[in-house]
């Protein structure tokens, strides 16, 4: 009997001498969004990085569709996308090129798909400009385009609304709701409110260690 979705049981994580995650657990079924909240330094980023398998918890388990993610890490990674504080853009490449290399690593795309994704996030006008010249909010929008193109069931977003204007934040909300509507899962860590209808969001409050 396997559960669909992402489950964490009693995660214990240490960073050097700091005990960052003290027995954190959660369950996110398909079509649900988990809002990871907490003060700065409470381990939101560490939790997300643990949930995507970058960090190894001291103890505890992480289950994807009922199976320990360690059993097949590449398959788990193929079904998730993680966006950290800083979108991973190369300063010397244009927004379009960045998106192409980023998404192309995971799945085949064509120029039309890339352009329409950029169009949707309002990047059409500056898609050929090198990322070096983009503002922090514009870089975020490129990351949103990658999110919409990745077509993976699990999204892990670290502060997805930072640096975005009101319209950009609503776009994040729309994208998340679309993802939930097609049965995807979203883990979002932010100390702001998520721009998503409250009924769909569960909340996980991390306490400061």
């Amino acid at each position, binding site marked *: 009997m396997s559960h669909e979705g992402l489950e964490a049981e009693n995660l214990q994580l240490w960073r050097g001498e700091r005990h960052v995650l003290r027995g954190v657990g959660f369950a996110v079924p398909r079509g649900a969004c988990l809002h990871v909240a907490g003060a700065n330094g409470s381990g939101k980023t560490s939790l997300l990085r643990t949930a995507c398998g970058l960090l190894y918890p001291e103890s505890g388990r992480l289950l994807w569709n009922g199976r320990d993610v360690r059993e097949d890490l590449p398959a788990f990674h*193929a079904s*998730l996308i993680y966006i950290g504080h800083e*979108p*991973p853009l190369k300063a010397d*490449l244009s927004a379009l090129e960045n998106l192409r290399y980023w998404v192309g*690593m995971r*799945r085949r795309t064509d120029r039309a798909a890339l352009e329409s994704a950029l169009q949707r996030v309002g990047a059409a006008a500056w898609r050929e400009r090198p990322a070096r010249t983009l503002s922090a909010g514009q870089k975020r929008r490129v990351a949103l385009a990658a999110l919409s*193109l990745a077509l993976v069931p699990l999204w892990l977003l670290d502060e997805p609304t930072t640096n975005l204007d009101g319209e950009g934040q609503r776009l994040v909300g729309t994208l998340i709701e679309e993802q939930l509507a097609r049965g995807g899962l979203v883990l979002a860590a932010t100390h702001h409110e998520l721009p998503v209808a409250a009924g769909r969001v569960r909340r996980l409050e991390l306490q400061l260690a």
Partner: protein
Amino acid sequence: MPELPNPELAAAPTAGMNGARAAGEGATVLEAARLVLQRDLTLAFRRRGQLVQPLAFFAIVTTLFPLAISPELARLREVAAGVLWVAALLASLLALEFLFRDDAHDGTLEQYALSGQPLTGLMFAKTAAHWLLTGLPLALMAPLAALSLGAPSASIPGIVASVAIGTIALSLIGSIGAALTLGIRRSGVLLALLTLPLSLPVLIFGARASELAIHGAPYVAPLELLAALAVLGVTLAPLAAAAAVRVSLE
């Protein structure tokens, strides 16, 4: 299958829900590796300054020796192979610091590790790009340096071959060192301390092949040993580099 982000059209994610990648949907390792290679080459050509630095370093070091030893070509010829190889080794070491640094800094390595593609294959692609950008130009420049050190023109093919094959092994060994020192501040000296002892066999066989070529003797035996090292490196080094990169992301 149109790839519009429109939810009505996006039936694909449900197909991919269980982590299975449908045919024609997910990118293969080869495609991903090709993109990594292409990206690194594109980036390098947008920052040509960094490309030229190791080559200029190589040229300067080989110029130092006649000044330090003697301008007599007969004497220089005796040490030409050694000079060439030590200079090539140091030049390729110099270029290593750039190999992963920017990718680690801007989060690209993290995306590589989370791409669902085997990181070993991507590391191999990165190392290949590094060789194309430093090893190959060094091999093409080696004849100039060799001639200026009194090597006969008949020795050129042997020298180019030995430097070209040797730098493959050096890039591979170097990729391990560069990955191991990720996240360490001022890692330059440590990188040298880790990489140089491991590069010793390459230096020995490479210098020997060049020396034999300069003396007009058959140089195939050390060249074969060099090729064996490169093959061993191709099979093992990306594994180690990938393991080191994963650790650096923890």
